[in-house]
């Protein structure tokens, strides 16, 4: 709360003032709460003292110039950074009050609860059906083949892909177009019924039409899931998210309602970024 209060004092803070985050970074009844997180790659610090809450059934957009640490931040939320040997995370990160980095927290279970969609569509080199069925299979979510069929179909439906692929579920997932592949990856993620979905620039490799479909989908998914999305497109952030967080050089500069950030940014750097002066 401390940071939130102090930042209220000056409505527009000076450039390169990384003292504190401006805006409403903390909220009530958060799904994921991050307090004073620092992330290091070896000696190099990638995230500095970041505190942020991610609200339930909300879309939060993480924006900022390249290399600002937004992807790194996203990956700390489901411990995908564990695979990087010299990555270190400190601070408190909780999912529904449970410590994500606690020894008792199993990363496999965590990732079943916090799913992830990546920048480049990465379907498995298997059939469309097997792509979606893989998660439920390894977690033993379906008790019978009929149940598995149902999970696959509803997931594909939720991802808005079922109508396009219902006649060729046995075709390889890689035979789909880029946009379809990305929706397949989303279907694959929601087949495990996670609570949170992290999206790392999910539409950056897609054409505008496919992007529009994905954005629409994200808006629908909000009903059932909590979503954090990293994006380079300010328009996309404005269209799909309820809250926006602006990162710069590993610092969380400003957080707020998306409409407020884009109409009335308080930090000079946020303003510069969204008006296209750098980034």
């Amino acid at each position, binding site marked *: 709360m401390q940071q939130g209060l102090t930042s209220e004092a000056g409505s527009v803070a000076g450039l390169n003032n990384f003292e504190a985050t401006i805006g409403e970074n903390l909220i009530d009844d958060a799904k994921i709460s991050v307090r004073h997180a620092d992330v290091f790659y070896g000696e190099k610090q990638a995230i500095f003292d970041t505190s942020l809450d991610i609200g339930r059934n909300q879309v939060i957009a993480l924006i900022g110039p390249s290399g600002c640490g937004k992807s790194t931040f996203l990956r700390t939320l489901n411990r995908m950074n564990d*695979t990087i040997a010299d990555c270190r995370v400190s601070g408190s990160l909780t999912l529904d009050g449970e410590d994500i980095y606690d020894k008792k927290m199993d990363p496999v279970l965590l990732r079943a609860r916090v799913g*992830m969609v990546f920048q480049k569509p990465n*379907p498995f*080199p298997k059939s469309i059906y097997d792509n979606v069925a893989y998660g439920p299979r390894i977690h033993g979510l379906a008790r019978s083949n009929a149940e598995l069929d149902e999970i696959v179909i509803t997931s594909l439906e939720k991802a808005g892909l079922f109508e396009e692929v219902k006649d060729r579920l046995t075709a390889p997932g890689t035979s789909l177009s880029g946009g379809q592949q990305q929706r397949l990856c989303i279907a694959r993620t929601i087949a495990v019924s996670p609570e949170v979905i992290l999206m790392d620039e999910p539409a950056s490799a897609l054409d505008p039409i496919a992007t529009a479909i994905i954005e629409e989908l994200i808006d629908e998914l909000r009903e059932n899931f909590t979503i954090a999305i990293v994006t380079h497109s300010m328009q996309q952030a404005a269209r799909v998210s309820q809250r926006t967080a602006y990162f710069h050089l590993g610092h969380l500069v400003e957080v707020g309602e998306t409409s407020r950030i884009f109409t009335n940014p308080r930090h000079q750097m946020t303003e510069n970024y969204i008006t296209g002066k750098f980034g």
Partner: protein
Amino acid sequence: MNNTEIVKQGLKKRYAREKRFQLYGKLAVLSGFVFLVILLFDITSKAWPAFSVTEILLEIPVDHESLGLSKDSEPNEEALSGINYAGLVKQAIRNVFPEVTKRQQKKLLYRLVSSGAEFEIKQMMGENTDLIGGEPVSVWVKADDDIDTYYKLETVTSRVKGEQVRFIEKLKAEGRIQTSFNIDFFTTSDSREPEQAGIRGALVGSFWTLLVTLLVSLPVGIAAAIYLEEFAPQNKITDFVEININNLAAVPSIVFGLLGLAVFISFFGLPRSAPLVGGLVLSLMTLPTIIISSRAAIKSVPPSLKEAALGLGASHMQTVFHHVLPQAMPGVLTGAIIGMAQALGETAPLLMIGMVAFIVDVPGGIFDSATVLPVQIFLWSDSPERAFTALTAATILVLLAFLTLMNALAIFLRNYFEKKR
């Protein structure tokens, strides 16, 4: 002078350089191809005689008197083995050449046929006892290797005496000499007599040895590669292991033979000359190849695939076995087959563990004494008889055929798995 002109001036030189380089490349490829053709032509032309064999038609007397059997009793096993088959063959030859009476000449006459002829007759009689007491049986028996070489290549050597040449002319005139396909080359094992020697023993020996090599080196190699690439902590011990594996790939193969002799035979007391020990030694030799190529294949699997699986909550092990390994399989198998091909052609380490022995029996398993194709080539290339030259070349051809087959299999598997992706 403006920039365009400067660039134009240099352009000619640049293109000339590129053309020159392409020419060098073509020359290199061409010279390699020429050498290959020469090699294959040389081997094939030398090997050609080995695939045919000279035979002489003899009428073997099978009446009771010649066989030394009594007419009253049925011939039993003992009586059959008591027959002087060598005598029968000699008698049949004398019947063809009734004019030859001098002892010295007779000796030369007997040397026309292979010493294996009596065993052929023995086998024939054992299988057809009802022949006994009938008319003389016409049989094509193998000629001696010197006669064989002389007849097939039509070159006079000091090994064939002038009188023997006359004998052969007479046989030719009577239509009693012919060449036919040398099926024994594929169905018999090593022999002191070239006309009776074959590669079956060496082929089967190679099969058992490679089987052991495959069963040991493939699982161990892949497991080591997976562990080192995916699970091993990044520390000095891992680095040390890695460096040593890379070094092992460069160790001369004979050193592995010495190691096998010391460890498997002297220390563990495994049988000498056995495919088991040969296979273990060759496994040691091929392991680095398999590990290095498998690691490269595993490393080349795109990280996005691993992330996708991990992101869904697959465990590290599930990620590796469900996604990484199937993707890496073409590379892993290619490495394994190339390692196997290397093992198939390896001679030196097997000499150390006694697989160089003269073995007449076809090995029945991994504990029997055996030899392998390349060692058989080594053994025959050392033999003084002229006919062995052809056998050596023919065996080289067979070995090359198998190597080509294995490499073709590697390419086929790679394409197959790549298509399946």
